[in-house]
């Protein structure tokens, strides 16, 4: 290192070309100061920290392939008669949007591949965002100072859903057209303004000639533009906050342990982009997605069974499918609750998880920065809530695919619908209770491990014939990891009477908070972690077994 520095000093006056370019850029962009802070930035290694990267890279793949597709796609609803290469569609009337999608698939070499990469990457993008979000949730990575970044991520997920939906609608095939028709019904169901909004958005009656071009603008310009901005902000904040890390030897709340951006993460993260791109390309080579030629062009009087949106909208689809058909008529007006309620519950469920960090920090009264991740078992209430949310989500996914469940498992579609209606309410409660129990069980096991060591699997027979399993003591890192979490007392309201003998008044919110705080730290929700004294007493006494 020092040799190199002297070498550069000696070479002064005839700096190498790269350095001269860097100097030029530094004089205008200040890149040296930027690099000083970031070039050797430390990133911790863990596979689950790369889920966000999968999302990022699939987003880039989507943009690259999307630009290619715009070169051939015609977002027009003008009617044409097909005369292209796909014989079973000859002479069929369709919109230019559908025709150009067929052309991309059958007449542009490699067009089908790019279409499939684009669509597969979209599914992986949303899936990766969801799983990434769950990783952040269950490890408590959303805590201060990262709440804003959590919201950015959440917004990216929601916008991703709508970008995906508008993209899915563009080919104007029979499946996606049915989805657009559903959107029309949703807009019409809006009280007061529904029919006006419908006319404005569709440029007249359904389907009209405007919706595909308008969706196109939203899909390729408006939403990706916003997402790109959010994405950059998300990444800047990741850099600025520095990454969280799991507890471990040498890992504290005040440091970050890992390897430097240059060179290790440059190679690993850069390489990972190619790996993700490669995986998705191979999937696009072997698995068909959205074969619009088999689906046919959209016509408002045609439909196919199995009419579903892509998976990320399946949850909304489920809500709509299992909603009972309620409708109010009063004073010449109609409210279509069969549509309206699911459409209101849909954002509510999403918002429930989005605002959770703020609720938790309020309940726990925690205003400190957290950079060490929680082990999910150590926060049973949060973990229980997260699992309950996932159960509600997946129950609705079942609801969204109830027809396929019915045919593939020989069930009645009506029974599945009823099951989903009940499970949506009961399932999360059961999941919450069960998860909490499991977490507490795991905490108990951790405690046993700390005090009595790890089960080694070696069975020993004692001289008097008794069989015992040999327990191996944990090393100090393991002991540290299993005991480093906090277990504070729950918040108390304090005495009901203050020092002057006056009855204190508590706000309702204070009472609620104290009650909820018990849910996090109360006796029933925590297995007290072993103390040093307990440990010493056991280890110093007799041999461990």
């Amino acid at each position, binding site marked *: 290192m020092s040799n190199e520095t002297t070498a550069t000093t000696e070479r002064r006056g005839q700096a190498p070309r790269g350095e001269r370019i860097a100097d030029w850029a530094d004089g205008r962009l200040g890149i040296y100061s930027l690099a000083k802070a970031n070039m050797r930035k430390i990133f911790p290694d863990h596979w689950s*920290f790369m889920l966000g990267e999968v999302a990022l890279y699939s987003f880039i793949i989507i943009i690259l392939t999307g630009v290619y597709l715009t070169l051939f796609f015609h977002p027009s609803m003008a009617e044409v008669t097909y005369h292209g290469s796909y014989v079973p569609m000859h002479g069929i009337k369709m919109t230019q949007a559908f025709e150009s999608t067929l052309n991309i698939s059958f007449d542009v070499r490699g067009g089908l591949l790019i279409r499939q990469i684009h669509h597969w990457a979209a*599914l992986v993008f949303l899936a990766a965002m969801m799983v990434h979000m769950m990783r952040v949730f269950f490890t408590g990575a959303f805590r201060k100072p990262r709440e804003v970044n959590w919201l950015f991520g959440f917004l990216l997920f929601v916008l991703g859903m709508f970008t995906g939906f508008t993209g899915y609608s563009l080919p104007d095939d029979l*499946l996606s057209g049915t989805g657009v028709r559903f959107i029309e019904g949703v807009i019409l169901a809006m009280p007061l303004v529904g029919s006006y909004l419908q006319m404005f958005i569709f440029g007249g009656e359904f389907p009209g000639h405007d919706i595909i071009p308008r969706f196109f603008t939203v899909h390729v310009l408006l939403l990706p533009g916003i997402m790109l901005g959010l994405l950059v902000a998300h990444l800047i904040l990741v850099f600025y906050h520095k990454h969280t890390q799991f507890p471990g030897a040498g890992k504290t709340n005040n440091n970050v342990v890992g390897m430097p951006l240059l060179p290790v993460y440059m190679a690993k993260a850069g390489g990972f982009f190619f*790996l993700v791109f490669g995986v*998705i390309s191979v999937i*696009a080579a072997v698995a068909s997605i959205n074969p619009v030629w088999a689906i*046919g062009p959209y016509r408002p*009087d*045609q439909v196919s069974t199995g009419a579903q949106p892509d998976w990320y909208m399946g949850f909304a689809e489920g809500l709509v499918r299992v909603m009972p058909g309620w409708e109010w008529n009063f004073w010449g007006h109609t409210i279509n609750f069969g549509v309206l309620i699911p459409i209101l519950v849909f954002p509510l469920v999403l918002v429930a998880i989005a605002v959770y960090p703020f609720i938790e920090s309020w309940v726990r009264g925690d205003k400190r920065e957290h950079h060490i991740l929680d082990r999910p078992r150590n926060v049973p209430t949060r973990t229980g809530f997260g699992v309950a949310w996932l159960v509600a989500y997946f129950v609705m996914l079942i609801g969204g695919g109830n027809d396929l469940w019915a045919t593939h498992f020989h069930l009645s579609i009506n029974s599945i619908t009823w099951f989903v209606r009940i499970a949506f309410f009961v399932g999360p409660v059961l999941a919450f209770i069960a998860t909490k129990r499991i977490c507490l069980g795991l905490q108990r096991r951790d405690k046993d491990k700390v005090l009595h060591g790890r089960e080694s699997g070696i069975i020993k027979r004692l001289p008097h014939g008794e069989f015992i399993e040999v327990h191996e003591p944990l090393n100090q890192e393991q002991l540290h990891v299993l005991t480093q979490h906090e277990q504070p007392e729950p918040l108390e309201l304090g005495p009901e009477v203050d020092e002057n003998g006056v009855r204190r008044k508590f706000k309702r919110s204070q009472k609620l908070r104290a009650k909820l705080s018990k849910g996090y730290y109360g006796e029933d929700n925590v297995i007290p972690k072993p103390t040093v004294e307990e440990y010493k007493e056991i280890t110093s006494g007799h041999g461990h077994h």
Partner: protein
Amino acid sequence: MKKLSARRRHPLAALVVLLFALAVTGGLYAAFAPADKAQADDTAQSLAIKEGKKLFAVGCASCHGTGGQGTSDGPSLVGVGAAAVDFQVGTGRMPAQQPGAQVPRKRNIYSNAQIDQLAAYVASLGPGPSVPDKSQYSAAGADVAKGGELFRTNCAQCHNFTGKGGALTNGKYAPTLEGVDPKHIYEAMQTGPQNMPSFGDGTLSPQNKKDIVAYLGAVNGDKTASPGGMELGGLGPVTEGLFGYIFGLGACVAVAIWVAARTTKAKKS
């Protein structure tokens, strides 16, 4: 005489006599026993009806009644026509095995000749659609694209875009059309088996039906190509989403585990 008597004692003589006697008896029976009816209509058709009636009495009458008039267990077959029998028995749906939301397709237990006999008998109960002949459902002269449009208007709502099947109410379902004989598809449209509505010639002309059958042959046949790769059941976004999660995200996660894993350390010595 001597020769004759000598042969009479031949060991095989008894056998010859026996065979002769049997042949004569059988011939006499064939000539005289059914004589009363044979004189009325001695065509092959009537023979088929008669044989069909016997088969019907054994395999069908317990549910559909001895005269096909229907019972509480099975509908009347008067007027359903030969096409309905050929479809129901030919696809193994009839005779039904057990009660349920719907009678499933299964292995057919009758020979073609027996099915024809049964069909002839049921057709004799009342006028109905007859079994189509090959020219009606062969792909020759059919417009596949038009068939596709007709399929999407009339059939896809239950059977899916390319005939992969779909769910109906309370456990009923529209079966997959994969590997179904074109003749049976044609007959199903003609007769409307179980809960499927019928598409008589007033609803779908014979040419319409021919086009639909040809379309199915093109998009759901043995050799049908799926240019993009594995079809994933041809069921749309649900299976695609599942595949994307398991193999798309799954593969990315597997790779991530490798990327983030610690490199093997040199053994301490």
